[in-house]
C-alpha cells in the first residue's frame, strides 16, 4: 500500500483549485447569460412601450392612430382562447396520464404510445397550425373561431401536460396506493381519493406553464388565419376573434414607427399575463406540494 505523497499532492493543489475556479466562473457566466438577456429584453420593451401603456390602451380597439390603438379585442380574445384551451387540454391530458400510469399494462403498444407522446412534444408549432387548419377550420367547418383555435392550441400543449401529469402521478409513492387497496378501495377510488389529490399540485403547475406557452404562441394562429383587423369582442365559442401575439405581430409590421412602441406596449401586456400565470403556478407548487 502506498501512502499519499504530501508534497506531490500540494504541488498539484493550486492547479486543481484554479481548475475548479475556472469552471465555476464558466458555469456562473452561463447562468447569468440568460438572465442578462432577459434584463436587456425587458429594459428595451419597457422603455419603448411604457408610454403607450394606459387604461385606454386596455379598453380601446385597434386603431390606425398609434395613440388611440388599444389591445382590448386581443386581450379578451386571448382570455376566450384560454377558456377553451384550459378545460380541453387539462381533461384530455390528465386523462391520458392517468390511463398510461395507472391502467396501461407494460407492453409494446403502450411503450409505443408513450414514445410518440414525447415525440409529439417536439413537433414544431406551425405543424399543429396546419393540422388545425385542415381538421378544425376546414373539415369540421368550425371556421376561424375561438373553438377551432382553442382545439389547435390544446393539441399543441397536450404532450407537455401529459408528461407533466405523468411525472406527478409517478411521484405518488406506491405505498399509498397499496394502503388504499389494503383498506378495500377499488382502483377508481384509489385514483380519485389518493393518487389525484397527491398529484394535483404537480399537474396544475405543469398545466399552467403549458398554457402560458399557448397564450404566447403565434405560428398556429397565423396558419389558421386568425384575423387581426376587427372591432368587436367574441360573443361565443364560434365567434371570430384575435389574440395577443397576432395583434403584436401586426403592429410590429406597420410602417409608422410609433406602432413599434405600441407593439412594445402590447408585449408588456402579454408578459404581464404570462408572469401572472407563472406566478400562480409557482404559488400552487409552493403552497400545496408535499414531499415524501
Amino acid at each position, binding site marked *: 500500500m502506498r501512502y499519499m505523497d504530501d508534497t506531490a499532492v500540494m504541488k498539484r493543489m493550486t492547479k486543481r483549485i484554479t481548475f475548479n475556479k475556472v469552471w465555476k466562473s464558466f458555469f456562473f457566466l452561463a447562468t447569468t447569460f440568460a438572465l442578462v438577456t432577459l434584463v436587456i429584453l425587458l429594459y428595451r420593451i419597457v422603455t419603448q412601450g411604457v408610454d403607450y401603456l394606459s387604461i385606454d390602451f386596455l379598453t380601446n380597439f385597434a*386603431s390606425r392612430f398609434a395613440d388611440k390603438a388599444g389591445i*382590448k379585442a386581443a386581450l379578451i380574445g386571448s382570455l376566450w382562447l384560454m377558456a377553451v384551451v384550459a378545460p380541453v387540454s387539462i381533461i384530455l391530458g390528465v386523462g391520458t396520464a392517468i390511463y398510461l400510469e395507472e391502467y396501461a399494462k407494460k407492453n409494446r403498444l403502450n411503450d409505443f404510445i408513450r414514445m410518440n407522446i414525447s415525440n409529439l412534444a417536439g413537433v414544431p408549432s406551425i405543424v399543429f397550425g396546419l393540422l388545425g387548419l385542415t381538421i378544425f377550420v376546414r373539415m369540421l367547418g368550425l*371556421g376561424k373561431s375561438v373553438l377551432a383555435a382553442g382545439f389547435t392550441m390544446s393539441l399543441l400543449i397536450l404532450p407537455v401536460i401529459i408528461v407533466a401529469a405523468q411525472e406527478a402521478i409517478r411521484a405518488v409513492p406506491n405505498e399509498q396506493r397499496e394502503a388504499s387497496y389494503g383498506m378495500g378501495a377499488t382502483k377508481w377510488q384509489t385514483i380519485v381519493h389518493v393518487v389525484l389529490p397527491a398529484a394535483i399540485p404537480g399537474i396544475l403547475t405543469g398545466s399552467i406553464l403549458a398554457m402560458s406557452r399557448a397564450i404566447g404562441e403565434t405560428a398556429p394562429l397565423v396558419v389558421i*388565419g386568425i384575423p387581426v*383587423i376587427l372591432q368587436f369582442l367574441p360573443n361565443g365559442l364560434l365567434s371570430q376573434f384575435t389574440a395577443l401575439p397576432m395583434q403584436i405581430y401586426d403592429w410590429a409590421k*406597420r410602417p409608422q414607427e410609433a406602432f413599434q412602441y405600441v407593439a412594445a406596449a402590447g408585449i408588456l401586456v402579454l408578459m404581464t399575463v404570462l408572469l401572472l400565470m407563472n406566478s400562480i403556478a409557482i404559488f400552487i407548487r409552493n403552497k400545496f406540494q408535499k414531499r415524501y
Partner: protein
Amino acid sequence: MKKWKYLTMTAVMGSALMLGACGSDSAQKGNNAETNAPASTGQDAADKKLQGAVAGDGSSTVAPIIEAVVEEYAGAQPNVKVSVGVSGTGGGFEKFIAGETDFSNASRHIKDEEKAKLEKAGTAFTELPLAYDGISIVVNPENDWAKDLTVEQLKKIWVEDGKAKKWSDIDPSWPDEKIVYYSPGTDSGTYDYFDEVILDGADLASSATLSEDDNMLVQGVAGDKNAIGFFGYAYYQENKDKLGIVNVNGVEPTNETIESGEYAPLSRPLFVYVKNSAMKESEAAYDFIQFTLEHAGEMAEAVGYVSLPEDKYSEALKTLEGLK
C-alpha cells in the same frame, strides 16, 4: 407569510388587468367621433342598423387602408362584425378559394391559376379598385451612385443569373462592392408585381433577404451601404429620413406621379376582390364594401397611399350595385 404576499400581489395585478380589459365601451364611441371621418355613409346606412358578419383576408399592403375603413365602419354599423386577416395577397386568395372569406384584398391582379381554382369552386367574383401604390425602390442614403435607374438596369440588378453581382457589373463607374438585396416575401403581391413588371417572370436574385415584415427590409437597407430593396410607398413615406429613393426612368415616386401613372411601370392599383354571392345575399357584406369604396380614397391618403380619381370610385360603386 411570503407566499401570501405573493398571492395578494398577483390577485391585485390580476383584477386590475381584468377591470381594465372589461372596462367601458363608451371610450370606443368617443374615439370614433374624434376621428375626422365623414359622419355617415349615406341615408340608408345612417337610418338602418345592420347585423351580420363579414370576413376578409389578404394583402399586407392593403391592410392599413382596410384597418382604417373597418375602424370607421365600426362607428357607422357597430353590430356588423367585420374581421380581416393579413395573410398576404396569395394567402388571402387561398382562403378566398376555400370559401372562408367574403372579400380578399390584393396588391396585384388575380393570377390565372387562382381564377381557375375559383371557377372550379364555383365562386363568382368581382374586382374593385381601392387605391394606388407605387412600389418604391430604395437604397441606403449613403449610396450616391444609384439615384436614377432605368427598368433595364433594375432588371440587371435584380435578376438571378447564377453569379454574385457587384454594383460595378451594372455600371463600371460604380463601386466594386457586392449588391445586397432586400425583397418582400414570395407570398406578397408586391413581390409578384415586381417580378412581373421588372423581371418578366425571371427569378429574383437568390441571395436576396426575403421578409414578410417590411420593417425588416427598411432596417436592412438603412443599415448597409450596398443594399437595395423595394416595398410599398407607405413604408418609404414613413422612413424617408433613413432611406434614399431611386428614380425609375427619371421619375420619382410621388403622389402625383403615382396617380397619373407617370411613375411607370411600378405604380400599381390595389384591389379588393368580392364574392358576388356574398354581395347578393348578405346586406352587411354589401354595405361594408360600399362603405369601403366610399371611403377608400380618403383612408388611403391618410395611411400613405394615393387615392384613385373620383370617377373610378363611382364606377366601382356602380359595378357593386350591379351585384346586388
